[in-house]
């Protein structure tokens, strides 16, 4: 039914179109008929008949000849001419920015938004990319002396990224230019990592290694025939090797994080479920330390964009710390609240312990690698000095913030603010 209706409507529209297209011819025909009527004095019926014939003729489909020439022209132009620059930019996986003669952004693709943010159309590129080499590149290309140019550009903060940036003008006299960023962070990071790894790890691995070497010497020498001492020394050596294994695990997970500094967009994490599973997995440790974990979760959905495994590690590290170092408090409170009052709406997860707390002068620095508030205590709790460093790394990737509040003797509270985007 509906099909017939629309078909009929379509046909009526076509007829109206034809009438409209031949309106001038129709008008001229009518004038001619009226003139004949006036001068020749024929009957009115003949005039009406002539008018009806004219209208009917105009309603008939016109010859398709000139329509087909139009179609041919359209087919000819449908190559790259009709392709929108926007679609083309979206199809490029690297960050790409199109700008005009005054260095103002005309269009930036999704990759550019993800990498740099805050590049709405109209923002000046020379204000956004202030590094001297980028300024030189922009000046060079805008002066019109060269058609294309490229430089190496390194962004240190918030996470280090290195790009090979090439700029070139688009088409002939369009007054548009394009910047394409080729990410080379990976190669640079591998270089840096090697140096860092050797510096950090060699120092930390040396200590247990030295003690193992010492005990081996003792076992081969003075303690050769002393079964009691042998048993004790072997126990210590076992502890030291497991410490080294933990350290290597942490170093590897830290370097894995550094290898891929930004996050795959689009995945959502249900915090309630993630934190529940963290609490379950740390149940045995809490029992061993005599700590009770209490939950205080807000109502409603608690989803944030992020990577589930990484956020799991964040809360695992924080809760593990709370259980170990806040042991004397006897309880740990995990609370999730909606931080809507914050300038950046999101969800706050707070892990609070009631242990000895952290002295104020250490708070700013405890996320540094191998920084320990109390070296002795950290060793006995089997800490590697990397837990909070890993936490901070993951949170930086999530655009999240870690704030630490503590009062000596009253415990410490670690709050993670995850933006809801």
């Amino acid at each position: 039914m509906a099909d017939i209706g629309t078909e009929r409507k379509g046909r009526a529209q076509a007829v109206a179109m034809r009438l409209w297209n031949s309106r001038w011819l129709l008008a001229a025909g009518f004038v001619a008929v009226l003139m004949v009527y006036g001068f020749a004095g024929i009957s009115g019926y003949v005039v009406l008949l002539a008018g009806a014939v004219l209208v009917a003729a105009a309603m008939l489909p016109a010859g398709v000849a000139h329509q087909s020439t139009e179609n041919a022209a359209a087919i000819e132009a449908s190559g790259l001419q009709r392709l929108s620059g926007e679609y083309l930019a979206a199809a490029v996986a690297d960050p790409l920015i199109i700008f005009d003669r005054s260095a103002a952004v005309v269009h930036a693709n999704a990759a550019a938004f993800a990498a740099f943010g805050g590049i709405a159309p109209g923002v000046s590129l020379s204000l956004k990319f202030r590094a001297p080499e980028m300024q030189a590149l922009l000046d060079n290309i805008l002066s019109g002396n060269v058609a294309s140019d490229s430089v190496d550009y390194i962004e240190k903060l918030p996470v280090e990224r290195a790009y090979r940036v090439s700029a070139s003008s688009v088409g002939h006299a369009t007054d548009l230019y394009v910047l394409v960023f080729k990410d080379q962070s990976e190669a640079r990071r591998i270089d840096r990592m090697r140096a860092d790894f050797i510096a950090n790890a060699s120092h930390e691995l040396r200590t247990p290694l030295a003690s193992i070497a010492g005990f081996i010497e003792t076992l081969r020498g003075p303690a050769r025939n002393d079964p009691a001492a042998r048993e004790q020394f072997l126990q210590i050596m076992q502890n030291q090797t497991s410490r080294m294994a933990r350290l290597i695990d942490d170093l590897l997970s830290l370097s894995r994080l550094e290898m891929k500094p930004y996050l795959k967009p689009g995945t959502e994490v249900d915090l309630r479920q993630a934190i529940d599973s963290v609490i379950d997995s740390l149940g045995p440790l809490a029992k061993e330390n005599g700590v009770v974990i209490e939950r205080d979760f807000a109502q409603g959905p608690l989803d944030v964009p992020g990577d589930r495994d990484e956020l799991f590690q964040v809360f695992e590290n924080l809760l593990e710390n709370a259980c170990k170092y806040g042991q004397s408090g006897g309880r740990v409170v995990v609370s999730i609240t909606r931080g809507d009052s914050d300038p950046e709406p999101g969800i706050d997860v707070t892990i609070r312990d009631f242990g000895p707390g952290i002295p104020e002068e250490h708070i700013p620095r405890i996320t540094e690698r191998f920084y320990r508030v109390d070296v002795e205590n950290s060793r006995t709790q089997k800490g590697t000095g990397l837990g909070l460093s890993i936490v901070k790394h993951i949170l930086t990737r999530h655009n999240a913030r870690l704030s630490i509040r503590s009062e000596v003797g009253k415990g410490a509270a670690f709050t993670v603010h995850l933006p809801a985007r």
Partner: protein
Amino acid sequence: MQSVHIVSAYDEELKYLSKRIAAMGGHAERMVEQAVAALVNANPGLAQKVIRDDLVLDEGQREIDDKAIIIIAKRQPMATDLREIVGAIRISADLERVGDLGKNIAKRVVAVADGRQPNSLFRGLEALANLALTQLKEVLDVYASRSVEKIGFVRDRDDQIDAMYTSLFRELLTYMMEDPRNITPCTHLLFCAKNIERIGDHATNIAETIYYIVTGDQMPADRPKGDKTDKIILPATLPAK
């Protein structure tokens, strides 16, 4: 950014000012970054380069001052335009000081490079510099995008910088008490830390100027004071280790 004027050359002049500010900002960021890298890696060559680069900033500030005065004289600016121009003068002065502080850090590289100091100190300095540089970068990004609602974060960072500086101050004092031979390099490092902390203050100043340019109001004056080094007194003898 600005509304369009009838004389388009006026727009061009204002745009030129903000472009020069951005270029100065880029130079200042780079100088501080390289000065700290030279300090941490004990690289006197890089330090020399930083010291030479300071000329660019001095030159930039003079140019912006001249241009701004000429615009005021020629165009008789009002409201936003006037704030924009006066703001440019103030921001360029702050950036020039940031460059000076970076240069000062670079000058101390040689003095510190002699005796090797504990790694944790350098890591602390690096972290402090990262905080200050992040703050400077965020502020200059706000200057580009004019989104003043992000300025609140800048002050939060200022607190972090002050807390970190206080912690480093304490640590440096401890090293000096441990061994008098540490006093020379540690004093230099103390000045470096102070310089970095001052860079953060200049970034906050710039943030306040931007707020004024965009809104026409002064930023609320509840700037908290987190630097507690004026009260640090370590006991005369070291605690038993």
